[in-house]
């Protein structure tokens, strides 16, 4: 059997995205390579979500080039995405995972065990029969994560996965993310929560007004940002 081709690295070269006359991303260059989590930070409207969607393939560039695993193809099924407000399918919790699993490579006979393992990983083992839309906000985020992991992704994009969650729910989601990253899945997530970025990031991409202003290791970014805007953002000043 032929090994699945790798999605990584994802190389974004001088990419711009414009829609309805508005520039969403401008001359963005970035490489998402295997390794520690990459965290996109920046103020609202900086283009973090758009960059995630672009890298995922949900958004098409109007200029520039995107390469996945050294190829210009947009195909491949080892990418997964968790939206800021994930939509729960109108089914049970277990059926939501099963739906995602059917899109993956898991053999039919192994699906029940895989569903149980994913729900256990997400801390939802006791809620498998509950309608997904009846879950709390934190539980829905964890189910969205389980659904994304059902596709056995090589790279997982997360758009503000803990926004509006209380500390306990945030920790539950972050624990899963750290666990998944430790298992070798490349994590790329957007947040404007600096505390969360410090806890999880191995690499930081700082964005303002649709541009990447700084890309560095988390340690060097937080200890000594290279731009005044990044410094101001870290200081809690308003960066517009």
């Amino acid at each position: 059997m032929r090994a699945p081709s790798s999605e990584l690295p994802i190389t974004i070269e001088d990419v711009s995205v414009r829609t309805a006359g508005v520039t969403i991303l401008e001359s963005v260059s970035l490489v998402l390579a295997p390794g520690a989590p990459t965290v996109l930070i920046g103020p609202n409207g900086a283009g973090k979500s758009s960059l995630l969607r672009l890298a995922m393939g949900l958004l098409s560039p109007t200029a520039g080039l995107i390469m996945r695993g050294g190829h210009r193809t947009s195909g491949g099924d080892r990418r997964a995405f968790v939206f800021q407000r994930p939509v729960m399918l109108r089914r049970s919790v277990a059926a939501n995972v099963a739906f995602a699993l059917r899109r993956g490579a898991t053999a039919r006979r192994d699906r029940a065990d895989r569903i149980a393992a994913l729900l256990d990983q997400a801390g939802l083992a006791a809620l498998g029969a509950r309608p997904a839309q009846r879950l709390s906000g934190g539980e829905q985020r964890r189910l969205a994560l389980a659904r994304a992991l059902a596709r056995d992704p090589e790279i997982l994009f997360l758009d503000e996965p803990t926004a509006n969650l209380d500390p306990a729910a945030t920790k539950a989601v972050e624990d899963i993310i750290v666990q998944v990253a430790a298992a070798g899945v490349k994590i790329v997530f957007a947040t404007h929560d600096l505390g969360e970025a410090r806890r999880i990031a191995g690499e930081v991409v700082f964005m303002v007004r649709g541009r990447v202003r700084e890309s560095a290791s988390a340690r060097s970014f937080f200890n000594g940002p290279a731009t005044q805007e990044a410094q101001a953002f870290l200081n809690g000043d308003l960066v517009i």
Partner: protein
Amino acid sequence: MNATQDGVSAFDLILGCDPALYSVIGLSLTVSVSATLLAAASGLPLGALLALVRFPGRGMTVIVLNAFMGLPPVVVGLAMYLLLSRSGPLGFLGLLFTPQAMILAQAVLVMPIIAALTRQTVEDLWVEYRDEMTAMQVGPVGRVAALLWDARFSLMTTLLAGFGRAAAEVGTVMIVGGNIDGFTRTMTTAIALETSKGDLPLAIGLGIVLIALIVAVNAAAAVVRRFGELHTG
């Protein structure tokens, strides 16, 4: 006989399991249920495709489909009569004045209702699901199947609405069925005939059953929707 006596006689027919009455009820249910299922087989996928696929002329197609929800039954009956009559393009099938012709005609009448309501339901759900389905790389067939499944409780109401329309109409089945006693006589055509003959007890009895049936269909729709709310959120 006055109205009170007619009403009492009607209940006697119903409670006494009058064979003529129940034969008509049985045929009516068979025709309307079959027509609804036939219309659903084409209307559900058609509505879902219209909701998901963009093509030139789609807007006009949707307008026409919505307009066809109000198709006059006698016009559908006339069109089907012309198609199925001996000199018509489908005359060789020999279906005119048979229950099969009535099923076909009612299916034509009900299909736009099912397709149009399905399109609206699926389109609303697609707005909600689009990003997730796209991210999960779900193909067109998978999307249609998933949307129809997740909208199943709303669509059940749509099917019941279609059934209600089929069961209550008289013009289509009168024209293509011919209202032949014991063969193509339904509740609605029998009511029209018996009223014109002055046999009001049978007409009233059938009317009571027809109204009870429509109330039961609406009650079923309410139960289905409630069940859906409880079990799918």
